[in-house]
C-alpha cells in the first residue's frame, strides 16, 4: 500500500495568519475570540466570534482571479500560498505536474445574500456582476484555487458540515494511497462574516458569555454554555511518500488512519456511538492500538451535549491509556467547515515542536470530562502519533491519525 505524507501546511486563522504566528499562539494558549458589534444589530443572541480580517489581494492577484472569490476563498488562497511554499512547490512545478484539490467548504452565505439583496432592489439579474455565481456555490474554494494554481488533477469540494475539512484529508489520503493521485491539496475554509452564522445562532447553540469573550469557548468545562463561531482556512499538501522523497521534499508527517461513520439518528444531536465507531475505524486503518496515541485533538466545541458525547466515546476507547486531550477550539472557537483541516495543522505543529497546547478555560470538570486527561496548561511533550476528531450536523463523523515519520 502506498504511504501518504504531509509535505506542506498553511494556515490563516484568528490565532495567527501563518504557521509561525499560530504555533506561538498555541503554545501561549492565546484566544482569537472577540465581539463583532453588527451581530447584535442583526438580532444575534451572541456577538461573539473569532476575529479575522480579509486579506487584501488587489495587486497580488489579477482581477479576473479575484472576482469569483468569496471571503472563504480568499482565506483558502492565503493558506494555500503558504502551504505550497512550505512544500517547495513553485509555479514551474505546478505547470509540469498533475496536482489535485479536495477542499472542505459548506456555505457561501454572504455572496448568496448580497446577490439576493441586489435582485430585490434592481429586479435585474444582469446587475449582479460576473463574480456572484462563482462566489455563491459551495465549491467556490476549489473552483477558484484550481484556476489560480492551474491544477489538473482531482477537483471537488467536500460539504460535510463541521467534518468537511477532516473528510477532505481522508479523501485525499485515499486517492493517493490507492494510486489515483501523487499529490492532492487538501484543507478546509470557513467564512466568518455576520451573514453566515445567523441561522446557526438561531439554534441558541452559541455561548452568550459576552462579558468575557476569551473565556466563552470552554470545551469540556462544567460551565460551558455553547460554542463560538469562527473561520479562516487551513491547507495541507498530501503526497505519496516515494514521490516526496524523490523530489527532495521535507516530510512533515504521515497520514496513517482515516475513520468515518454516520450516526443515522438526529440531525443536530451527536452520538457517542458514532464518534466511537469513527475513532475505532481510524485505529484499525492505521493498524494501531489506543496505547500508541500520544495526543487527541478533540472535536469538543463547548456545547453541553456535544462535549459530553465525545467525552463518553473517548473514555470508552482510551480509559486505560489516558492520552493528553485538548480542544484547540477553546482558543480558536469553532472553525466549522475548516476545523477538521486546521486542527490537523495545529496538532502537527504541536507534534513538530513537542508540546501539547492547552484546552484553555477548562477549570471545572463535569461528570464525563473528569474521566479524561485534559491538558489545562501547555505541556512540553513528545508526540509520535495523534488522533484528530471532527463531527458534523447530520451525524457525519471523521477521525484522522497522523504520525511522525521516523
Amino acid at each position, binding site marked *: 500500500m502506498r504511504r501518504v505524507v504531509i509535505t506542506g501546511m498553511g494556515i490563516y486563522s484568528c490565532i495567527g495568519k501563518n504557521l509561525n504566528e499560530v504555533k506561538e499562539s498555541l503554545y501561549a494558549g492565546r484566544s482569537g475570540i472577540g465581539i463583532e458589534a453588527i451581530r447584535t444589530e442583526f438580532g444575534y443572541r451572541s456577538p461573539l466570534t473569532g476575529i479575522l480580517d480579509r486579506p487584501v489581494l488587489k495587486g497580488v492577484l*489579477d*482581477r*479576473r482571479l479575484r*472576482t469569483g472569490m468569496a471571503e472563504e476563498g480568499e482565506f483558502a488562497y492565503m493558506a494555500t500560498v503558504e502551504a505550497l511554499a512550505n512544500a517547495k512547490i513553485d509555479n514551474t512545478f505546478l505547470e509540469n505536474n498533475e496536482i489535485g484539490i479536495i477542499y472542505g467548504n459548506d456555505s457561501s452565505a454572504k455572496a448568496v445574500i448580497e446577490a439576493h439583496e441586489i435582485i430585490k432592489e434592481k429586479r*435585474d439579474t*444582469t*446587475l449582479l456582476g*460576473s*463574480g456572484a455565481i462563482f462566489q455563491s456555490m459551495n465549491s467556490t474554494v476549489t473552483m477558484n484555487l484550481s484556476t489560480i494554481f492551474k491544477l489538473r488533477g482531482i477537483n471537488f469540494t467536500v460539504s460535510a458540515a463541521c467534518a468537511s475539512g477532516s473528510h477532505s484529508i481522508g479523501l485525499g489520503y485515499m486517492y493517493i494511497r490507492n494510486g489515483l493521485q501523487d499529490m492532492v491539496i487538501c484543507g478546509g475554509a470557513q467564512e466568518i462574516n455576520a451573514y453566515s452564522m445567523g441561522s446557526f445562532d438561531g439554534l441558541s447553540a452559541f455561548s452568550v458569555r459576552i462579558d468575557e469573550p476569551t473565556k466563552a469557548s470552554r470545551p469540556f468545562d462544567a460551565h460551558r454554555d455553547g460554542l463560538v463561531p469562527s473561520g479562516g482556512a487551513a491547507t495541507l499538501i498530501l503526497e505519496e511518500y516515494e514521490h516526496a522523497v524523490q523530489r527532495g521534499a521535507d516530510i512533515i508527517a504521515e497520514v496513517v488512519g482515516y475513520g468515518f461513520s454516520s450516526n443515522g439518528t438526529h440531525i443536530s444531536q451527536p452520538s457517542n456511538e458514532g464518534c466511537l465507531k469513527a475513532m475505532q475505524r481510524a485505529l484499525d486503518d492505521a493498524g494501531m492500538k489506543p496505547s500508541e496515541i500520544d495526543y487527541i485533538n478533540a472535536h469538543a466545541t463547548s456545547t453541553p451535549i456535544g462535549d459530553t458525547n465525545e467525552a463518553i466515546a473517548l473514555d470508552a476507547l482510551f480509559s486505560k491509556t489516558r492520552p493528553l486531550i485538548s480542544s484547540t477550539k477553546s482558543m480558536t472557537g469553532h472553525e466549522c467547515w475548516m476545523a477538521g483541516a486546521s486542527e490537523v495543522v495545529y496538532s502537527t505543529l504541536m507534534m513538530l515542536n513537542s508540546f501539547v497546547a492547552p484546552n484553555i478555560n477548562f477549570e471545572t470538570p463535569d461528570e464525563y470530562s473528569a474521566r479524561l486527561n485534559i491538558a489545562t496548561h501547555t505541556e512540553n511533550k513528545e508526540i509520535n502519533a495523534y488522533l484528530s476528531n471532527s463531527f458534523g450536523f447530520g451525524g457525519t463523523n471523521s477521525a484522522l491519525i497522523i504520525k511522525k515519520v521516523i
Partner: protein
Amino acid sequence: MTRQEIIDTTNEFLIDEIEVEKESIAEDSRLKDDLGIDSLDFVDIAVIVERKFGFKIKAEEMMSVQTLGEFYNYIDSKINR
C-alpha cells in the same frame, strides 16, 4: 454630460475597477484584443455603467461596438439622445 466627461468617467472605471492598463487606453483600442476585456468583464462593465450613467447596456446593441471610441459613442448616444 459632455463627450469628454463620458471619456473621463469611462477611462477612470476601466483603470480602477476593470484594471485595464492605463497605457493601452486610446480611442482606437479594441476592447477585446487591445484591452483584454473578456465576456465576464462585460458583465461587470454593465453593472458599473448602470451605476455611473444610469442606463442598462443591452447585449445586442454592444455587438457592433468594437473599439473604445465606439464604446464612448454608444454611452453618449444612450444618455444624450
